[in-house]
């Protein structure tokens, strides 16, 4: 008995190993994206004196916050081993619905989008979890469906509904404290909640278990169907909320938003270290992933006079570099 004790005391992998150096290394491994982010910000601050200014960082924060909100939902979905392509359209739909509903007051402008987008998530979730259709296809259909609904509300996109200045919701979207917009604070709050939900609740455990092995999870008595439906509803709700706040900020339900957004979101999540195969990932990583994209974008503009084509080349190169470094840092982890 005692022998086997000592045996295992010794038998532990380096990452969890005792020495401080190893622990630090493990930390970097687990937060590869964050490490890269720090690196990039450092470089940026060094290279462009206009980069580290409060105003500029504030811009990055506010622009990233909407993507982040959507990415939060996507993180849960991807950890269950699923995917949600509909977020871009749902994001846009949420905005249009908010602007459409504001005529009945700010509360309606908040609730209608949440209800509709939540319903979208619910339907998708049921099709995936109960009918067992492929998430990719279901949410692809969702992408088309939401966009279609948006167009039909806005007369094939010809009418843009406006949110009057006075409206409470507009003030929520546009107000700021310490030069940082409310949406940023809200996003932060949501991420804290998300982190707790994922790491510190049974629901979170189920999410990981399903992603790790859906069969095993089912055998262990995890409410697989319910959990999966829940994450897609969450994703829908968050996308809708983000769209609503964005519309509030722009004080209009712009119809051309969100095309291709799903890829940015997925990229952010995956760069954040979440595995598309499910079962592993973290909310904090997603934050880093989102900010990385934002910073890259910002730095490209800092460089200034690049033609749009070169901008794409550069951001592609940035992306490649980032994922390579990030993968390299967290490789040991994945192989374990």
């Amino acid at each position, binding site marked *: *008995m005692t*022998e*086997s*004790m*000592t*045996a*295992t*005391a*010794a*038998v*532990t*992998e*380096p990452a*969890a190993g005792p020495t401080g150096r190893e622990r630090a290394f493990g930390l970097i491994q687990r937060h590869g994206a964050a490490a890269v982010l720090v690196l990039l910000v450092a470089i940026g601050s060094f290279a462009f004196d206009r980069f580290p200014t409060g105003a500029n960082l504030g811009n990055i924060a506010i622009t990233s916050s909407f993507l982040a909100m959507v990415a939060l939902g996507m993180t849960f979905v991807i950890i269950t081993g699923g995917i949600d392509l509909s977020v871009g359209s749902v994001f846009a739909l949420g905005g249009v619905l908010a602007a459409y509903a504001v005529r009945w007051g700010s509360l309606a402008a908040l609730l209608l989008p949440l209800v509709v987008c939540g319903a979208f998530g619910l339907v998708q979730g049921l099709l995936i979890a109960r009918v067992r259709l492929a998430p990719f296809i279901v949410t692809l259909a969702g992408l088309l469906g939401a966009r279609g609904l948006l167009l039909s509300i806005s007369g094939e996109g010809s009418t843009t509904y406006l949110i009057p200045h006075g409206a409470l919701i507009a003030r929520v979207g546009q107000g700021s404290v310490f030069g940082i917009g409310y949406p940023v604070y809200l996003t932060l709050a949501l991420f804290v909640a998300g982190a*707790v939900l994922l*790491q*510190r*609740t*049974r629901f979170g*455990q*189920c999410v*990981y*278990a399903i*992603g*790790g*092995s859906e*069969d*095993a*999870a*089912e*055998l*262990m*008595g*995890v*409410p697989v169907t319910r959990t999966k439906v829940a994450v897609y509803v969450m994703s829908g709700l968050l996308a809708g909320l983000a769209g609503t706040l964005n519309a509030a900020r722009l004080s209009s339900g712009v119809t051309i938003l969100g095309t291709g957004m799903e890829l940015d979101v997925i990229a952010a999540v995956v760069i954040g270290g979440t595995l598309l195969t499910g*079962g*592993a990932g973290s909310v904090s990583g997603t934050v880093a992933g989102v900010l990385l994209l934002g910073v890259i974008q910002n730095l490209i503009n800092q460089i200034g006079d690049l033609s749009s084509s070169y901008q794409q080349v550069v951001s592609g190169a940035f992306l490649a570099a980032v994922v390579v470094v990030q993968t390299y840092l967290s490789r040991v982890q994945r192989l*374990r």
Partner: protein
Amino acid sequence: MPDEEGPLLEVSGVVKRFTGVLALDRVSLELAPGEVHALVGENGAGKSTLIKVITGVYRPDEGTMRLAGRPADFAGPLEAQRAGIQAVHQEIGLVPALSVARNLLLGREPRRRFGTLDVGRMHREAERILASYGIDVDVRRPLRSLGVGVQQMVALARAVSVDARVVVMDEPTSSLEPREVETLFGVVRRLRERAVSVIYVSHRLDELYRICDGVTVLRDGRVVHQGPLADLERLRLVSLMLGRPVSDVRAGGVTRFSGGHDAARETPVVEASGLTRRHVLDGVSVAIRPGEVVGLGGLLGAGRTETAKAIAGALPLDDGRVTVAGTPLRRGSAAAAIRAGVALLPEDRKSEGVIGTLSVRENIALAALPRLSRAGLVSEARIDRIVETFMRRLRIKAAGPHQRVAELSGGNQQKVLLARWLATEPKILLLDEPTRGIDVGAKAEVQALIDELARDGLGVLLISADLEELVEGSDRVVVLKDGAVVGELSGGDLTEERVMTTIADAGGGVSR
């Protein structure tokens, strides 16, 4: 419980069809409170399927179940567990990526006031539970980093740590050491005292005779015998399982090794020296001569699997070298090892062995493809020949060579893997639990095969949790402990007792 008298679990006329197969054919079974009931049968007889029906994984196509007198029709495992039916499944059925603690306590984690998990307590809890089963691992580690043996113990602990009314165990000991087996029996006895009924599936007959009261024998999905186990003597049981007259199965259950291939003077075909990996292996050296069967002995976590993997280039090493027929292998390259003629039958068949989406045929041919193809084009004819041979030789029970391996029974999957490696015509065979989950008939077959291969001049490394098999089958046994060689037994010294004592007497191994 409502009625103490009547059976606790009552399965009647259950039928389960899969496309092509009739897995269960009007199976009935009664389970008295506190009864330990053996469920036996050949590979593919339908044991696991029956268990999955009982635990709500499958819905029966026909037939009914009653639990404590009340009709039971489970929509899923969750409902079955709520009703008090817990299970240890054949392929463990835990989440490899999650930590040991989370696997153990998933769904019943200790929580704080606001329903948030109390991780600290979760880990202490998990450590406490596992310790009570003699397992003592870092519960923060992902489950997959542990050997299958430990994983099985975790699954067991999980199943019985809640108070269930029926506990189903599908080959729970298939990779457990004698020590853990004893622990498990202790658990079973405690359950029995608490009037919890147990369904126990195993291909190790002596185990059955030690703890089971009643027995149900399945063959091809049909019940061929039911009754108290005591009245049924061993050979009869085997003959019932295999459906062959007692006379044929004389040796059944006992190993089929002839032992003693004198290869002493040959030069080693494979020589591993100073294999070292932090915390796992500590300068392990093994040499295998052609025609020799070398066994690896040791407790769970002794590092036998790791040793085998290291030789096969499937484990990154800090130090040590492996030479095959004199030429050193490139370190950490499985492909190179295979080209040199080293074949490793992995212990964890689900994650390291079978490719479930592919057919039996493709799985068997996989490793031998270079031999079975010309200019990158595969020769269907040759593949057919090989596949046909091995499916007959190993009595692989499948709808046909084109059935997907995922749909095969556990034991048959094991046979497919064995076939895959034999098809490569290796110089050295590293067998990690080769007869794991294989029925007595096929087991004898496999052992005879190993024996014969050794005669043909193959070097064999045998790892087996089944001490009898290990001792009978090996010419020499190298005993490991904590990742280091602590002794070697051969000839007259090679007995089960000596192996155990060698382990017990030995001091530590891995750097501590």
